[in-house]
């Protein structure tokens, strides 16, 4: 579903992401972790088509993000860390616009919009202009928009920021349900507990390279620290200079 083939992105002379080789199959929830400046945002930008790789290819459902951008985008849903909404559109109007963008048949549009409004409990403010929304409301509306066209791949950048506990629960349950149905989820986060709870696999990125790729239990086996909490493992792995306790897990 998601393929990074030797994907590299340079910022001038600096290599932000170096020769990324990563395949995420259908139905998997993948969490990308890493310290600030590790290359997570660049990876996500390449995945959603905002940045073109300097070298290599990024594919979504087999579509190259550079040469088949629209086909790839039609299969994608994206929830950015700073969601953009049209201030002068109501939540309802925004969702209808998104439905039109993904060519949802007219007879289904209202049903899909109502479904997402109900799912993310937007009824109370769906007819207000977005300029009056709080951060949490904006985030819920963006989630509703991302799920509106039943994407095959969902890309989430720090998805739980601004959401209240109830909304977090709704999103977590929905992600579990959708991945069971075959949706692929790519999530970038700093919340280790969230990654541990939700992710099927995780990647830890340091200085533009994947330093670890696997499940939490594999991480516990491979990194040699006394305290086996994810936090300790993560800190051990991302410490500078990079820990060399990793066996053969350096996939880059």
């Amino acid at each position, binding site marked *: 579903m998601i393929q990074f083939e030797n994907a590299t992105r340079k910022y001038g002379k600096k290599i932000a992401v170096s020769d990324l080789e990563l395949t995420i199959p259908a139905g998997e929830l993948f969490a990308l972790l890493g310290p600030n400046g590790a290359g997570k945002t660049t990876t996500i*930008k390449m995945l959603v088509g905002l940045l073109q790789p300097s070298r290599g290819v990024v594919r979504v459902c087999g579509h190259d993000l550079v040469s088949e951008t629209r086909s790839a985008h039609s299969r994608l849903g994206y929830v950015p860390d700073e969601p953009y909404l049209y201030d002068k559109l109501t939540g309802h*109007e925004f969702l209808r616009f998104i439905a039109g*963008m993904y*060519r949802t048949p007219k007879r289904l549009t209202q049903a899909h919009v109502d479904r997402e409004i109900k799912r993310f409990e937007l009824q109370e403010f769906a007819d207000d202009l977005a300029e009056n929304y709080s951060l949490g409301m904006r985030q819920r509306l963006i989630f509703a928009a991302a799920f509106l066209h039943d994407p095959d791949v969902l890309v989430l950048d720090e998805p739980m920021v601004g959401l209240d506990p109830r909304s977090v629960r709704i999103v977590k349950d929905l992600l579990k349900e959708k991945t069971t149905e075959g949706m692929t989820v790519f999530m970038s986060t700093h919340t280790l507990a969230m990654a541990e709870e939700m992710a099927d696999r995780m990647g830890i990125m340091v200085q533009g390279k994947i330093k670890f790729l696997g499940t939490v239990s594999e991480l516990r086996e491979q990194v040699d620290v006394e305290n086996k909490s994810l936090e300790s493992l993560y800190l051990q792995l991302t410490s500078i200079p990079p820990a060399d306790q990793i066996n053969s897990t350096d996939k880059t």
Partner: protein
Amino acid sequence: MQRQLLEVSQENTLTRKLRRTIVWNLVRSTIHKSRFRFGLVLALSTIFWTATFCLFYESFIFIDSMHAEVMSLLFNTFFSALMLMMIFSTAILMYGGLYRSEESKFLLTCPLRAEAIHAHKFIEALWFSSWGFILLGSPMLISYGIVREAPWSFFAMLLPFMVAFVFIPASLGSILCMLVVAGLPRLRLHAFSVLFAAATFAALWLAWSTFGSTQSQALTPAWFEETLSRLAMTEQVFLPSWWLSSGLLDAALRNDSHEISRQSTFEALKFLGLIIANAMLLSLMASWVARWTYRKGYSNLEAEMPCKKRRQIFWLDELLAHGGSKYGHPIRLLLVKDLQVFRRDVTQWSQFAIFFGLLALYFYNLQSFNYSNAYASLIGHLNLAVVGLILSTFTTRFVFPSISLEGRRFWILGLLPIHRDQIIWAKFLFSFGGGLIPCLGLIFLSDSMLGLEQKTIYVHLACCIALCGGLSGIAVGMGACMPDFRESSPAKIAAGFGGTVSLVLSALFILFVVITVGLTSHLNLLRNAGSRLPDNPILWLIGGSGGLAASLVIIMASGLLATFAPLFLGIRAFRQLEP
């Protein structure tokens, strides 16, 4: 499974519907929330349109009776200058819209063609870059048609001519922007700077070589002849401005002969067709350029490393912060902070430099003309009003929102061991000091070029000090009384109710100062020159030295009132503020 994608026409319908909904909601919410502002904008626009119409109407009657043959030249000059300005303004607007806006970032992650995103942002830029042309061009052309007793077909063709024409410079500007970004990603700032500098230099050179370097005395028939012959270069047949000008002139021709009338209408239609065809071709070319360069250009721009130049401590900051004492006074430190933000915000200082630079250029050129004393005095007062009005737009646009913009950082300022009053005083001193130096310089330049007597210059300089104090006091005081901490855009804060009140108060204050000083010093001038004043003892009294001194006292008192009354109210409101 292949998902269905939108057709080109469906994409255009979708974005058109989006724009329509946004505009409709915007108008509705503006009427609902800011009825006063909406009414004010509508009323001022109507007044501006009517005044422009009257001005053009009278001018065309004068030209029609004396110099009918220069009309083509004037139209060509006007439209070619406008075309050049629109190319650059659209290029800048497209850069902001396509490469720096959050909306384009969002749309680029949606299954839309690059051309569709370009078309959407292009319409937006087209509107912003051409509304001035419509607002200025419509009264001009309608008044021309009325003066020339043009047939109905002229008025019917006006809108198609204007709309089709604006697409040409706008498309050229858009193509220029995309090519610069795609071809010179690293050098784009330099490229834009060089282009902007070249255009400014060309415009200045053109203005100077056309009006400034003529041999004959200004405003004489010979001077007109020379100037017009220099403007003839705008009459190039390959310029779209020439097509527009020729088409409109043909359309306005009225002749008793039915055959000739029909022929000129047909000629006008040919020019309209030519403009429409070129507009369509250039729009199509812009769309092609977008298809091939937009996504890649955006990506290259995103991948640029921010400049990590280490900021040196500037001597002026050091002097302001610590000069004369070991520890900086809080007000001084806040002042330095605002000065640093101003220096690093290109929007602020560039607008400041452009407006005051243009005014300085205009004032400098005043020496080219000969005036009678009374006329020079009148122009001097009007120039004082212009400087005040320009300053008031800056204080409203940049100083008024500055208190609101502290809202997000209020926890920093709120926790500092300083009085809140000091924040207000620092803002006031920054605005007053920043405005005073250039304004005094401009007034001195204007009065010197006009050859006004020393006494009048001193009076104007005193008025200028009162204006700077009053306008700064109003902007800072009102900004503290009516802050909007939820809004992050200074333009939106300035455009709100508080900003409008501040602007109206500023305009009234300027009007009061200029009328007071203008009336007394003008009457004084007439009295001293031995001119006959109307048989009114009050006017005679006002025109005396005592009257002039009294007006100065009134102006200084009103300046103090305009400075400290809003500041006092602002400080009181700011002390009680709970963000």
